[in-house]
């Protein structure tokens, strides 16, 4: 069974593609990494695959149907961290997580939120408004917001960004456990260790071609520069 599938998907702005057409699929229990240099088009591919940008050509389907980002079912199934400011600005970090959890019908929402705050080292800053958090803390809060709720698919754009080494390791292990439990993750990353820990496959985003390779090959390519 395939959860998210792109077929000859051409992405870009206006009518100019930013990379070669992409063909990739994400199944439950797998993690797919998008790798490539800065400006290769990884974020554009991610945004197009979750319906935030229209494709220039090709198709992208979620659970067999067309992707519609405005659909309640899609929003219930897919959690993403693609935007740095995906917060309700009048709510504290803890309140943001709690409201998200309650909207998704999470049982024992308060305990779940407390556990996420602790996992991301935000317990001391739980009562702060997003505007009072540092950029790294906001990043951790956004990741906690994606993990505080159930989702079939997590879509993350450079989740390791602005995280220290220890927190990157914690996050990679956490996501790997989620994949082992049957979840799916599609993520873009520059971090070889993160990719090595988490990814089952890697899509190398390039100007001429976008092959799907083993993560070891993608890591080797990254380390070669």
């Amino acid at each position: 069974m395939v959860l998210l599938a792109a077929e000859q998907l051409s992405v870009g702005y206006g009518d100019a593609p930013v990379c070669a057409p992409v063909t990739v699929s994400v199944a439950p229990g797998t993690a797919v990494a998008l790798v490539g240099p800065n400006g290769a088009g990884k974020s554009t591919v991610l945004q197009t695959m979750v319906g935030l940008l229209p494709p220039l050509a090709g198709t992208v389907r979620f659970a067999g149907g067309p992707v519609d980002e405005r659909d309640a079912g899609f929003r219930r199934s897919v959690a993403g961290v693609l935007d740095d400011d995906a917060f309700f600005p009048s709510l504290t970090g803890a309140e943001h997580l709690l409201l998200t959890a309650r909207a998704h019908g999470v049982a024992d929402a308060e305990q779940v939120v407390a556990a996420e705050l602790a996992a991301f080292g935000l317990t001391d800053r739980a009562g702060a408004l997003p505007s009072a958090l540092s950029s790294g803390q906001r990043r951790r809060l956004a990741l906690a917001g994606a993990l505080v709720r159930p989702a079939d698919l997590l879509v993350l754009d450079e989740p390791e960004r602005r995280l220290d080494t220890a927190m990157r390791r914690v996050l990679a292990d956490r996501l790997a456990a989620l994949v082992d439990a049957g979840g799916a993750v599609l993520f873009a990353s520059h971090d070889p260790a993160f990719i090595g820990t988490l990814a089952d496959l890697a899509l190398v985003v390039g100007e001429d071609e976008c092959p799907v390779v083993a993560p070891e090959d993608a890591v080797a390519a990254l380390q070669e520069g």
Partner: protein
Amino acid sequence: MALCGGTVSSLREQIAARPAADAAVLPGALTAAVVALSLAAGLTALFARLGPVSATPAAVGWWLPLPAERRGLLRGELRRSVGLAVAAALTVGVPVVLAWTRTPAGVLAGLAAGALLAVIAVAVLVVRQAGGGGGWVPPVAGAVAAVAVVGPAVAGSVVARLDVVLPDAAGRAWSLPAPLASGVLAVLLGLAVLCLVLADRRLADLPAGALRASGETAQYATASVFSLDTRELGRALGTTVRRPRRPLAWRWVRHPWQAVVAGDLAVLARSPWRWGQLAVGAALPVLAARTEGLAGLPALVAVTVVLGWWLAATSLGEPSRRASAAPAADRGLPLGGAAVVWARAVVPAAVLAGVCGVSALLIGQGTGAPAAWLVLGVVTAPAWAGAAVRAGYRPDLDWSGPVLASPMGAVPVGVSSTLVRGPDVGLLGTAPVALALLLGAVPWWLVGAALLWSLALGALAVGTARPPD
């Protein structure tokens, strides 16, 4: 056609036979003074938000580190702020002074006093700015502005209810003896000079961080004005949300749409500034309806109804404006895009039902059938709630298409249709209230028609509002 003609003819006869307003108890001069006080308080809050002395980030980076006296670099900014304040004081002061006195000497003295008070206010704000404190100025000024409008409106309604006749203050109370008026002006002049000297000396103490912060705000606000983006202007000048004292638990949230409502309620509960806007919005038309001279002009009262209720709707449209600017938070909820927009109309509809209902009840005081006025106001709320959501989610101006030359620079062709998106629905929804004001009464058929009209407009406004792609 015969039916329509007969209805129009009947309405014209009823309008012509409209009873004279007997609940207009506030002297026009008093109303002019409180409105001027409210505007002055609003301007004071604005000047405090913009510094009043500021420096652009470039100026802070390049000029302030130079081994030159900071006072000389900032003196021009002080002069500009004082000039703007004096111009604003004269603009606001002319109608007030003319309402109180018509003698040339009196008018000149009144305007001079207003200008000197403006100079003193700016100088005091600069001294406060140099001292690093004064975060209290905008909220206090906002409270003064709200009380200045709400207080007389409520007092006027109470006086009308008690049937008390107030003395006409204009013309008699303000005829100060010339020596006393000259003395007051001399004292104000002395104070203004003293405060200006003090402010000039304190320019050297203005911290670079404060200058940069107010400069960024001024730049942001100026850019918003020139790009005709009122939503960005609101963000530039808006107050920051304060950290809540007690976290909310929302145990009553069981469905995704309730999460949207809960978030919107939190925005309202944590923004006292918006409570003031709601109070002013409800009171402004009441103030007009209680004022001698204005109450007899139903069209003018209807204009204040639109202005006041639009102010209230604007204050409740903040969650829609934020969601339009940053839609990512809503995407985290298991609710479709259209359903989010519908849920976002719940809080405005509920709060505006109260605001418009109370406001209409007091507007109609003295015309009989208070329940009908109350219900007429309540049924108008859906249209205004739709207006709040429609304005919040309105698309950005399209600068990629053809532009027109204007005194402010190039503006997109569709600018007016974009800017009126929201108020247009509210204006149409208020038509039954305007008709009731013209008739001087609220027939029950009008209430029924208003309900259907308002629901249709509200549904149309919310149904056509869309979050950005």
